[in-house]
């Protein structure tokens, strides 16, 4: 048995992973979440703003990480719209524009009262990586002549008087890497004391913790935090508890659990093999 396992072709590990993730997806199994303090902090940052506050929604991710980040962007968008905040969408990623469109569709379909240009606006893609952050912080008009639809910024009430983002009430960032959360902290939130929350991939989250709470109000790390955020939202606003679409993150947690258990099992098995082989002495190892 041990010999079979110790010479196990890694392709069996891959196959096990396919089953561990595929089965819960097909069966649709779902678990409840217990929101952590960090997630509640992010929730409060949006919830406690007075209605009609200005929120810059910087969606810096692309299709390759939307599985993890789309639920966050959707939840942020729903929450901000539910609270009646004014939303400015933008992205630093060339492939981020279609991602913004997804959030816009949520606003259009679920908040028909929201008027483009008055309650929300899509500034679109800002080229120039972190330089673009400096630009919107100092002189937004230098970066965006028009919004993503070609409207002049002066023609819309929301952007008419907007010169830079220094007076935004909150900066919400969804970030898949660089440029993203870290650069927003470095170039916008820290120097201009803008309140900021961010939703990031699991990889990035640890490197952002050191910025909390002075430079950053909160981080949603990985899909679990997204699911917890959806949970808090659906407790605060029961309509979300009934909407399947507002529970994308919660649904994705099913495969997570099974796959995590597989990983744990693999680590245990790996160590059992290691100790058994070691007890057999040096000859036991390949």
């Amino acid at each position, binding site marked *: 048995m041990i010999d079979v396992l110790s010479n196990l072709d*890694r392709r069996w590990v891959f196959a096990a992973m396919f089953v561990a993730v595929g089965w819960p997806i097909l069966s649709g199994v779902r678990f409840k979440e217990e929101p952590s303090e960090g997630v509640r902090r992010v929730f409060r940052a949006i919830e406690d703003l007075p*209605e009609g506050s200005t929120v810059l929604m910087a969606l810096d991710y692309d299709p390759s990480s939307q599985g993890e980040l789309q639920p966050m962007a959707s939840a942020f968008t729903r929450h901000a719209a539910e609270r009646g905040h004014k939303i400015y969408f933008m992205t630093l990623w060339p492939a981020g524009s279609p991602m913004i469109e997804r959030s816009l569709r949520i606003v259009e379909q679920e908040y028909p009262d929201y008027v483009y240009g008055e309650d929300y606006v899509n500034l679109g893609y800002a080229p120039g990586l972190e330089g673009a952050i400096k630009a919107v912080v100092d002189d937004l008009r230098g970066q965006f002549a028009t919004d993503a639809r070609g409207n002049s910024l002066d023609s819309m009430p929301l952007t008419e008087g907007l*010169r830079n983002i220094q007076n935004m009430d909150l900066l919400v960032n969804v970030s898949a890497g660089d440029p993203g959360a870290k650069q927003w902290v470095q170039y916008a939130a820290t120097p201009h004391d803008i309140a900021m929350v961010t939703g990031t991939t699991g990889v990035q989250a*640890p490197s952002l913790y050191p910025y909390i709470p002075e430079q950053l109000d909160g981080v949603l790390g990985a899909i679990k935090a997204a699911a917890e955020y959806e949970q808090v939202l659906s407790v605060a606003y029961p309509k979300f508890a009934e909407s399947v679409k507002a529970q994308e993150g919660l649904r994705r947690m099913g495969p997570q659990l099974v796959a995590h258990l597989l990983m744990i099992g693999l680590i245990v098995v790996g160590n059992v093999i290691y100790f058994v082989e070691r007890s057999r002495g040096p000859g036991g190892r390949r």
Partner: protein
Amino acid sequence: MPHHPTRHGLGTLLFAVAATFPGLSFADDAPGDAAPPASPPAPPTDIVVEDRPDDAGDGLVVRWTLSKDDTEDADPRTVLKYVVERKPAKGGEFEQVGESTYKQPEFEDEVDHGTAYLYRVVAVGRGDVRSPAAESTEAVQPVLQWFNGRRAWFGILLLVVCGSVVYFIQIARRGTDLYIRPIAGLEAVDEAVGRATEMGKSVLFVPGIQDINDIQTVAGITVLSRVARTVAEYDAELVVPTARSLVMTTAQETVEAAYLSAGRPDAYREDDVYYLTDEQFGYVAGVTGTMVRDEPAACFYMGAFYAESLILAETANSIGAIQVAGTAMPSQLPFFVAACDYTLIGEEFFAASAYLSGEAHQLGSLKGQDVGKGIGATLVVLGCLVLTATTLFTVRGFDVGLLTAIGDYLTQNVLGDGGLSR
């Protein structure tokens, strides 16, 4: 649950109609209230306009004393916001330039350099009732500062750290022997190239996926320079796929120079340093494809890496290559540490070029970095002691005025942006 805001024409109209009937209340957007619009709030007073310090002469700061009605216990709130208006001192009309919320007696305004301005501030209550305007008395012109005083301490610390790096490079250049501890990953470089030569297989070098405007790529290129020289000396084969055109260009220059200094200019082939694609995963698909087909015996990953780190490392592991990685991406270090034979962690990666250059004076820079760490550690110890003492004495009921001042100076001025004395 707050209801959905009434933000459109109809809502406003209804509101206005409702407001005209005395005694009839109408729910407004603000939470927890149901009151008709009140009479105008008291105006703000004592408008003071000052130059915004440490800027390019393009900012003014407007401060005022809060309206008497802007109090914490007012429920519902009488003052919702302040509207700030300005006009050039030489004629013109007052125009609104911004707003500040209740309890905020300050506004920073972006202005044109070389023009003097007058300001006035109005308190606004619910139902958009406005107080009389309070006006500033003197026209104020913004002033340009040549040095950003808030960064004085930053400059001092930067000078000390840079100075010690330069100082120790000079010391080493004069021939003073400096002890530098060994780093396992670096000693493996020659071994890995040697093994590739023995096996008659190639060496794969990945300089990260960022462009040359990331300092990690620059550091990776300097490591490449040394690896290429060893490869040339051993007469092995080197393959460098790049994800950026400029990195390709720089790497070609570097590798060519390395072959030249190894006395093997004829062995250099420009095609061995080639461009794949800028896109992260397209690049990875290409590199892993090369790995499984060419089966290099040694793989180096030196530069800025993202999610692709583990795809590269696991694929190379499956073909049995020796792997040495170096990166300053904290998020990718765990994967390299788990999957590679040797990993240069953060600062070690930057130290690599000094080690590998084989030049004694470059090693001096490492001693300079250590001085930087010493300064950092000293500041941490000092600050923690001061803060701890402050906490202890506060609880015991002693006067901690001086300690608090020291602690504040450390955090706000030395390590913050308070400048020398603010």
